[in-house]
């Protein structure tokens, strides 16, 4: 850079010659130099500001354009992030305790039509009516030639039907994917599974929702994609359930009963291994709910959970066990059984006359109403109510079925002394067979409360203590005696040491006014093996009548007990229970040494 001197010699000398002040020249030059620097600095600052401004404009512009683009376009899922499995979006399967499928999904197609795209609606309607006999050709043609733009034809198609529709070749007939709930075992465990149907429906998909049973109770779980297809495992054993249904259906027809139910329950875990209610239905094709008449006549009605019945003498063991627990009696205490027992104008009678007195064990063995009523009088209404409340007889069972809350026991309006006496032998309090099974399990498993559950458990329940171990063992021994020498002699199954109590209760008339003479509810509540309790089985028959003899026999000993025995014979080996037959010689190898 060439610096201009402030005092150029040539101009100074010239100025001196002219007599001017050379300092003016210097000042002038200094001013010029200052101006020049100032202009330069200003230019630079302006340039920098411009660049800054451009940068800001660019940054804000970028952000603005990006925001506009995000706001103006359709949202798209980030593809690069793979959190979770995007594939398994189906409703979860339901499996039994061994993992066998009880409910699963099947891909099918639905059929709908766009009538405006049809070339020959008359031909399409004629051909469709041939494929689907339940559709009328005239209706279809009316739909196809009317003003409608969209017509549903079928919700589900089989592959063969789909191929036939393809063969029609009409461009106005379209298919949509559709997920179908399939119950491969048909009516087995129908009441547990319930059924499913479609909720909101679209062309591309439809929502499957549970309408009853566990499908409804666990609807949220089954639909939750976070499970990643993990199945819902129930405590039901498919094989045992099938065997129980077969035996019960056979027994029901032999005994001419109009309905039957059975509950098989693990006494320690509370798992319900099999729960049957007959008549049943096919959940793949769920029948409609009855709109008139008694709901309990519908096959949809779950007798084991929703049906509340007076279960008769099966309740006697609760009264006697409570008296044992309170120390009022011991198994050998003599109880007065002279009949009839009068209470006001009410008389309590026994089926036979059992003489003036019986031991408390024999009150159970011979099923004496009078003896039990006397024991209940000693216990008193308050204590009896508390005891039955503890065993769960005052509220619906907590089993995981959507129908469970409707199985509410019927209790006497006023728990009078007379109610106490009748409830002790199972009249005046109605409960479901599942209540009875849970009550027996709690009483006989060693005396701790168990809640029935339909979900697979891996550990025994640790419930509150109901009765002592000793009372529980005494009660089991009494029930064993009933089978060995009492009313349930048909209940003996070699090797399984069955203990149980029969109960035959007259059915109350629907519109009040006493009981029927010829309609009973016959129940057998049992535990096996009695010395090491594992399972509780309750079999209940609705209006049975065994007609092989001269006159019809309706007592549980003739009807429910043989069925229960056959059921134990069939199911106990399936449950892995080995019969223990007393052998005379010791089994195995004798160790010797010399």
């Amino acid at each position: 850079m060439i610096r201009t001197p402030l005092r150029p010699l040539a101009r100074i000398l010239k100025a001196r010659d002219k007599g001017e002040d050379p300092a003016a020249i210097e000042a002038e030059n200094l001013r010029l130099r200052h101006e020049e620097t100032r202009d330069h600095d200003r230019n630079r600052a302006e340039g920098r500001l411009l660049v800054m401004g451009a940068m800001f404009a660019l940054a804000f512009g970028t952000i603005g354009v990006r925001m506009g683009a995000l706001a103006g376009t359709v949202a798209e899922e980030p593809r690069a992030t793979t959190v979770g499995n995007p594939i398994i979006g189906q409703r979860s399967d339901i499996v039994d305790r061994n993992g066998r499928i009880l409910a699963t999904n099947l891909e099918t197609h639905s059929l709908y039509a766009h009538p405006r795209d049809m070339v020959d609606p008359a031909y399409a309607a004629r051909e469709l009516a041939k494929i689907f006999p339940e559709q009328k050709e005239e209706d279809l043609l009316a739909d196809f030639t009317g003003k409608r733009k969209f017509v549903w034809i079928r919700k589900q198609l089989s592959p063969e039907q789909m191929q036939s529709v393809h063969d029609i070749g009409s461009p106005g007939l379209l298919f949509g994917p559709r997920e179908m709930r399939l119950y491969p075992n048909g009516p087995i465990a129908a009441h547990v599974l319930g059924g499913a149907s479609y909720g909101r429906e679209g062309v591309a998909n439809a929502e499957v929702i549970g309408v009853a049973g566990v499908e409804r109770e666990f609807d949220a779980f089954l639909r939750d994609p976070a499970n990643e297809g993990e199945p819902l495992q129930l405590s039901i054993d498919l094989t045992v359930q099938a065997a129980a249904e077969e035996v019960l259906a056979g027994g029901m027809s032999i005994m001419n009963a109009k309905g039957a139910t059975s509950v098989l329950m693990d006494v320690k875990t509370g798992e319900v291994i099999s729960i049957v209610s007959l008549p049943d239905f096919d959940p793949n094709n769920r029948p409609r709910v009855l709109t008139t008449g008694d709901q309990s006549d519908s096959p949809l009605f779950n007798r084991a959970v929703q049906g509340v019945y007076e279960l008769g003498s099966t309740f006697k063991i609760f009264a006697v066990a409570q008296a044992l627990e309170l120390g009022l009696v011991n198994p050998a205490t003599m109880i007065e059984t002279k009949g009839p027992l009068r209470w006001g104008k009410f008389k309590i009678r026994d089926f036979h006359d059992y003489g003036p007195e019986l031991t408390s064990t024999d009150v159970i063995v011979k099923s004496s109403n009078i003896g039990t009523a006397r024991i209940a009088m000693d216990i008193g209404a308050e204590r009896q109510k508390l005891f039955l409340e503890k065993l769960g007889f005052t509220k619906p069972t907590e089993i995981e079925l959507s129908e469970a809350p409707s199985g509410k026991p019927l209790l006497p309006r006023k728990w009078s002394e007379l109610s106490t006496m009748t409830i002790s032998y199972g009249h005046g309090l109605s409960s479901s067979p599942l209540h009875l099974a849970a009550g027996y399990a709690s009483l006989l498993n060693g005396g701790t409360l168990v809640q029935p559950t339909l979900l697979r458990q891996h550990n025994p329940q640790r419930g509150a203590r109901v009765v002592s171990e000793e009372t529980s063992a005494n009660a089991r021994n009494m029930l064993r005696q009933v089978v060995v020498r009492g009313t349930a002699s048909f209940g003996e199954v070699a090797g399984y040491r069955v203990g149980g109590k029969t109960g035959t209760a007259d059915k109350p008339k629907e519109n009040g006014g006493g009981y029927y003479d010829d309609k009973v509810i016959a129940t057998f509540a049992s535990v096996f093996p009695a010395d090491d309790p594992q399972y509780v089985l309750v079999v209940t028959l609705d209006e049975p009548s065994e007609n092989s003899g001269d006159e019809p026999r309706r007592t549980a000993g003739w009807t429910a007990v043989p069925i229960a025995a056959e059921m134990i014979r069939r199911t106990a080996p399936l449950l892995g229970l080995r019969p223990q037959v007393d052998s005379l010689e010791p089994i195995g190898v004798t160790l010797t040494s010399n």
Partner: protein
Amino acid sequence: MRSLLYILAALAVMALGFWSYQENYKTRDVISEVRGLHMQIGRAHERLGMLRAEWAYLNRPDRLSDLAELNFDRLGLLPLMPDAFGRVDQIIYPLPEILPITVPIEVYSAPINIDEEAL
């Protein structure tokens, strides 16, 4: 010295640009591959579900008991009953293996004349 730094920086920027370009396309390839795999897995799941449903349907207890009844002559299957449980002492010891026959054995095949008077 300074210009060398400039050149190196420019080269580094170019190299990085080249690298990120390649990475970008590799990622896109992988994403599309993953999408394809997801589709394959989805189809496999569908097929698996169908096979499971079919297996469950073919093994439903009603059908199995019908089949056991149909083939009773051949298989002789009965429902499991308590007497199916055996005991340890019911199992026989393994039989000794039969030694191979090495010497010829004469087989007597002529009719035996029974002396009737002797009886």
